[in-house]
């Protein structure tokens, strides 16, 4: 059974498609990079997968897991960094699925939280308010929370933006570790070198899928050119999409 199935799915805003007629499957345990120019619909696709955005048409099937079992690391993390919460408590929210509204955080849970914080290299930061962290440290905290969520499907939206190379390497090691543990990982990325080196599979998106498959076959100069030419702007006077079959495997 596929970890993720896209059934002719169209996602967008105000009836304008940002991801147009996407079909395909992602097998369990795959490590997939989602790449494409700005405005190609990468974030939109990921938002659709985690259920924040409802499809305009078609559907996305999660292979037997609940929507709440997905760990999602958003791009512009809408996080209020001025809120007085410690790194320990913030990372601890990753345990929500296990403890919910009232569950206590016992000794074992405290251990897990501390191990997650240690795993991202933030020992000693437990009691720091999140407002005092640097951008890279905050990204490490978010990764620690994803670690605790212990999810079968992990969705990362441009997780290495504006992050220095040391932090990137550390966090990339975590991604590789998740892959090794058999989790399905999707990451929206911009760094082609990184994609080539670490991600076996790639989905090249330009509103519709330009190419999808083994990374080496997807990342050809030709495909990238096609993706680049994609028109970014919505056409306000566009007619309703007449057809649901012909254009499905566009480009």
């Amino acid at each position, binding site marked *: 059974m596929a970890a993720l199935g896209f059934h002719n799915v169209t996602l967008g805003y105000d009836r304008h498609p940002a991801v147009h007629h996407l079909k395909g499957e992602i097998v369990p345990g795959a490590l997939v990079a989602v790449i494409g120019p700005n405005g190609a619909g990468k974030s939109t696709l990921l938002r659709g997968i985690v*259920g*924040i955005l409802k499809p305009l048409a078609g559907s996305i099937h999660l292979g037997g897991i609940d929507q*709440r079992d997905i760990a999602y690391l*958003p791009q512009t*993390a*809408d996080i*209020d960094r001025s809120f*007085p919460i410690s790194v320990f408590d913030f990372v601890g929210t990753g345990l929500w699925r296990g403890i919910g509204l009232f569950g206590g955080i016992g000794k074992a849970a405290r251990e897990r939280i501390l191990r997650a914080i240690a795993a991202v290299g933030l020992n000693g930061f437990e009691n720091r308010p999140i407002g005092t962290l640097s951008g890279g440290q905050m990204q490490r905290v978010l990764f620690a929370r994803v670690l605790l969520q212990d999810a079968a499907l992990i969705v990362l939206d441009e997780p290495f933006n504006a992050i220095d190379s040391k932090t990137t390497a550390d966090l990339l090691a975590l991604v590789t570790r998740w892959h090794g543990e058999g989790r399905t990982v999707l990451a929206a990325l911009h760094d082609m070198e990184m994609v080539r080196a670490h991600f076996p599979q790639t989905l090249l998106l330009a509103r519709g899928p330009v190419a999808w498959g083994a990374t080496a076959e997807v990342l050809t100069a030709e495909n990238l050119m096609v993706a680049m030419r994609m028109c970014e702007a919505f056409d306000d006077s566009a007619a309703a999409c007449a057809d649901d079959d012909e254009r499905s495997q566009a480009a």
Partner: protein
Amino acid sequence: MYDALIGPFTEFEFMRRALAAVIALSLAGAPIGVFLMLRRMSLVGDAMAHAILPGAAIGFLLSGLNLFAMTAGGLIAGFAVAILAGVVARSTGLKEDASLATFYLASLALGVTIVSIKGTNIDLLHVLFGNILAMDDQTLLVVAFNATVTLLVLAVIYRPLVIESVDPLFLRTVSRAGGPAHLAFLALVVINLVNGFQALGTLLAVGLMIMPAGIARFWSRDLTAMISIAVIAAGVSGYAGLVLSFQTRIPSGPAIILVATAFYVVSVLFGSVGGLVRQMFPGRHLEA
């Protein structure tokens, strides 16, 4: 000393009642105020407080200074304005604060009009500024009951409320508790405003919620500590305000808020977290 600070309360029953009411208001209102502040909704609280007025005024019009009529009216009006402002904002693209400002100005004008149709200027003063010294047992029980409900509900929604304040998107991906928690929180705001309204009137009702929160912000970076400090600041302001009011004949509501203001000024100046003096003389920079 004893005569000034404790005497009034042992001697007069209305002072004891007022003190009990102030403590109840502090216990429930201050934590709500901390969340209002942290969610950048301080002025929303203020606006909602005014919105309660016409409801309470209609209650007053129908049955005089009757506690239950005014409380019920206030609750209904508060919820109605909260929901209407949200609907207008969502369906027209007007920002929620602008839409709320319109509603509360209209409510305030309407409320004052309604009260003056039937009541005297004394009634109007009572509605606008409250009269904690005139509290009867019934009112006190209602205030205490509302405070108890507030603390219980807050305990239930505490975790989702905190997560929703820090990272709403995350909460949406792991749980559906965010929306209900937000609504329950708004309900608690209204309940506590109605509560404060009994003691401090519509214009100052939000005072014992927001000001202690503002004070607490200058003394701690930890949520639990902030809530504790806010509760203590509210309680002490209430007590000192009552004493001040008793000794000087300043009306009780304004006296309480003035004491809180004094604490606030001291906190802004000398607070250990971002206080002005601390900023001006931070001491030598550290090694690492």
